[in-house]
C-alpha cells in the first residue's frame, strides 16, 4: 500500500531530518487491511533511526504528538484502529511550545 508519511515539529530529527517519506507498506501476514497500530510498528522498525522513545510510548505515539490521517486527527477515525487506504497521507507532528 502506497502511503505518504510526514514528520514535523521536530519529529523529522528522528528520521534523518527527512520530513516526507513515500513508502510502501503491506498489511501484516494473515490480515487483509492495514491499521494504524501496525503502521506505527512498521515506522518504528523502518523509519525511526534514533531515540524511538521520542516517537512512541507503549503501542501508541508519545504524549504531545498529533497524528493526522488525510488532514484529520486520528482520534476522529479510530486512533490505533484507523484503517488505512491506498495513497493516504499520515502526518506525525510534535506540538510546539515556542514563541
Amino acid at each position, binding site marked *: 500500500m502506497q502511503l505518504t508519511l510526514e514528520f*514535523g*515539529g*521536530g519529529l523529522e530529527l528522528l528520521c534523518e531530518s527527512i*520530513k516526507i517519506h513515500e513508502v510502501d507498506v503491506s498489511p501484516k501476514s494473515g490480515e487483509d487491511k492495514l491499521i494504524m497500530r501496525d503502521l506505527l510498528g512498521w515506522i518504528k522498525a523502518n523509519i525511526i533511526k534514533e*531515540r524511538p*522513545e*521520542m516517537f512512541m510510548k507503549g503501542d501508541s505515539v*508519545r*504524549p*504531545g*504528538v*498529533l497524528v*493526522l490521517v488525510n*488532514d*484529520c*486527527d486520528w*482520534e*476522529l477515525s479510530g486512533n490505533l484502529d484507523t484503517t488505512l487506504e491506498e495513497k493516504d497521507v499520515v*502526518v506525525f*507532528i*510534535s*506540538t*510546539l*511550545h*515556542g*514563541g
Partner: protein
Amino acid sequence: NVVIDNGLTPEMIYRYSRHLLLPNFGVEGQSKLSKSSILVVGAGGLGSPVALYLAACGAGCIGIVDSDIVEINNLHRQIIHKEAFVGQAKVKSAADACRSINSLVKLVEHNEALSPTNALEILSKYDIVVDATDNLPSRYMISDCCVLLDKPLVSGAALGLEGQLTVYHHNGGPCYRCLFPTPPPTAACQRCSDSGVLGVVPGVIGCLQALEAIKIASAIGEPLAERMLIFDALSSRIRTVKIRGKSAQCIACGENARFTKETFQCFDYEEFTQSPMSDKTRPKLNL
C-alpha cells in the same frame, strides 16, 4: 444616528474607513472590535505582531502580560521592541509601540509573570485571551484558566522553521488538555532560546493569531476552533487540519471536570510538565 449607536466617532470612521468598506466586516465588525478587550500573554516573537495588529485594527482595550526585559537577541523576531528599549520592561516597550501607532486604543501593562495566583484575576478582565508564550507550563495554565473563566483562547506557537495555531475552548471545541491530557517528555520541549527560530516565523503565526482574535471579537468568519493550522516555512506549505472535539474525560472541560478555581490556584504547572515557566534561571547557550 447609526454612527452614534455603533459607538464609532468621526475620528474612528476616518481611521478605520478601509474596514468599514468591507461588506463582511463593516460598521458592525468595527464596532464590536472597538468594544472588545483582548489579553496578549507574552510580548515576544508572537506577541509583537499580535499586539501591533490588534492596536492598528482598533481593538478597544489590549492588555499585555510579561515580566521580561528587552534584550538585543530578542530583536531578530520581536519587532515591537526598539533598540532604545533594551533593558526596559517588555510590556512598557510594547504598549508604547502600540500607543504610537494608535492613540485611540486603551493599553494595560501587566508587568508581571502570569502565574496560578494572579491569572484568574488578570484574565477575568478580558473577553479574549491570546497565548503568545514560549513554554509548556504556561500553555497548560492559560488553557485551564480560560476554561474556568469561559474565555476563548487563541493559541500560537513557533519554533525553528515551523508554526502552529488553533483556537481553544470556543464554539464547543476542545481545550489544550483535551488534546494533550499528558505532557510530553521534557526532552521534547524545545524553546526558541535553546533551539532557535527564524525571526519571521513567529511573525506569520502572530499575524494569524491577531486575525483569529479579531474574527472572534467582531463575530466574522469561522475561527480555528476544532481545527489547527500547521505552517512549514521551508516549503511554504500551510495546512489547516481537523482536530478532535472536546473530550468528555477532560479534567479541565469534560463532563466530570474536577478542576476548580481553588485547585487551579494551587496547581504546580512546572512540576506537572517538568519544565520551567521562565528561562531566566537556565544557563544561557553560547555559540
